[in-house]
């Protein structure tokens, strides 16, 4: 057990390991602190390799005082070398797709929720809740059902139908808030202050965010205990982006992997790009925006970790770009056609930015570039409805010939 306490990222005030998320001195975000001084790299590596198949193999780096686990263990999703995608992009870099749609509820949110709900149980909560743009809603409802906890899931009422249906099915209390995600988030921050509930991304946010580090750990293992040279990841609140970096950093500090921090490229949708805008203006201050994009899972206009995401892109020599809705649709199709992976709009944003980086010549020959695909295309079917083509024929060979112009083989 290496977990120590909570600490303010701004003023370093320390707090006990409870359900709190902001510093009462300066309002800064709290983060989990560990003591890794007892960890021997060789022993730790053996323990990881002998562990479970998913995220619990990284228990040494997760915020639990006792033994943690869950029945729907996410993680160890495929890392696929995408040579045909690299070819289409005209780059000599090695492109790897980390397909996190291959989790129990088809997004990376299973990682953070598995950690948050296990922590909620450790802290004695009986009800869990969240403010969600959709993927989190699916994950909280499912993991709460698996853990036997009651749940309340708050979402913008205008969410994609697939995400609503795939939440309600788990028997949660699904609450559609008339407003955008930032309204939902404000409401949940108020409710978290009054209700004895574990809001996974409000009062349990410091623990929840730790789950994203497992994406970094898996990447290192799947690259044969090596670091990538460059990563491309989507930014909504900025938590995933900064925690992937933290994961790589921890393993370098402990001596589990050699090398330097990869270059970090962030991806946002133009219709909701407070972090990309701050980056391009050379400031860490992210002015809030009213989102208007098909990438609803990234539609956070007031990103909590925005300033840290900007700093990280700058410190690693990376960038934060935004792409418009057409580029997002194009990105979804490009990934599907070259890798067989159908991603949701957030993945379209990430692939769209990857393409932009290739066009700008930022991907170097031979370097390893890992692209984080965080969600499943079946959840945002409407995004590509207009480009859908079905050729109808009569059930006979002549009709097929007349449409497709091929010879019938007798």
């Amino acid at each position, binding site marked *: 057990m290496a977990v120590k306490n909570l600490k303010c990222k701004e003023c370093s005030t320390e707090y006990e390991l409870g359900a709190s998320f902001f510093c009462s*001195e300066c309002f800064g975000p709290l983060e989990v602190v560990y003591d890794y001084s007892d960890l021997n790299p060789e022993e730790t590596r053996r323990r990881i390799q002998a562990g479970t198949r998913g995220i619990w193999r990284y228990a040494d780096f997760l915020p639990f005082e006792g033994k943690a686990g869950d029945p729907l263990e996410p993680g160890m999703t495929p890392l696929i070398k995408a040579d045909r995608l690299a070819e289409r992009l005209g780059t000599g870099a090695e492109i790897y797709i980390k397909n996190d749609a291959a989790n129990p509820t088809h997004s990376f949110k299973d990682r953070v929720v598995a950690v948050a709900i296990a922590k909620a149980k450790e802290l004695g909560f009986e009800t869990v809740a969240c*403010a969600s743009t959709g993927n989190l809603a699916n994950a909280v409802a499912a993991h709460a059902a698996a853990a036997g906890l009651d749940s309340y899931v708050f979402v913008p009422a205008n969410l994609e139908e697939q995400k609503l249906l795939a939440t309600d099915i788990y028997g949660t209390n699904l609450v559609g808030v008339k407003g955008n995600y930032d309204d939902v988030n*404000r409401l949940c921050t108020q409710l978290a202050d009054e209700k004895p509930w574990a809001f996974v991304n409000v009062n349990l946010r410091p623990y929840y965010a730790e789950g994203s580090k497992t994406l970094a750990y898996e990447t290192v293992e799947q690259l044969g205990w090596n670091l990538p040279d460059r990563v491309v990841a989507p930014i909504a609140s900025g938590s*995933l982006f900064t925690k992937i970096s933290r994961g790589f950093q921890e393993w370098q500090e402990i001596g589990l992997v050699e090398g330097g921090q990869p270059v970090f490229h962030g991806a946002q949708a133009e219709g909701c790009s407070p972090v990309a805008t701050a980056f391009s203006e050379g400031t860490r201050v992210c002015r809030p925006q009213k989102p208007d994009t098909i990438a609803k899972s990234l539609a956070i206009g*007031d*990103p*909590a970790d925005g300033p840290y995401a900007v700093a990280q892109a700058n410190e690693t020599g990376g960038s934060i770009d935004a792409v418009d809705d057409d580029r997002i649709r194009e990105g979804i199709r490009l990934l599907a056609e070259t890798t067989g992976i159908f991603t949701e709009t957030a993945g379209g944003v990430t692939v769209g930015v990857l393409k932009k980086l290739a066009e700008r010549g930022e991907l170097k020959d031979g370097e390893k570039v890992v692209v984080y695909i965080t969600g499943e295309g079946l959840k945002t079917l409407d995004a590509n409805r207009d480009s859908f083509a079905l050729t109808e024929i009569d059930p006979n060979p002549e009709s097929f010939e007349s449409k497709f112009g091929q010879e019938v083989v007798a």
Partner: protein
Amino acid sequence: MAVTVKIPTQLRATTGGQADLTAEGATVGEVLDSVFAEYGDLKDRITEDGELRRFVNVYVGGEDIRFGDGLGTPVSDGAEVTILPAVAGG
């Protein structure tokens, strides 16, 4: 003009335990100043050099004041001003 200022639990030690304060003012800045006059510790917690701290959000009737005129955002009689931590969500 009387408005209600809603104080989150973690800050209620600075307001004698009160969750809702009644204050006067035509703008958010004036309202907060009228509250700070009575509860000086609250001022230190949520402001720095006369500005709101970076991780403090203030809403008037549910709308983030950064979409208005910041501390100059007008408040009408009977409005609700809410102070919340900004580090949630995602």
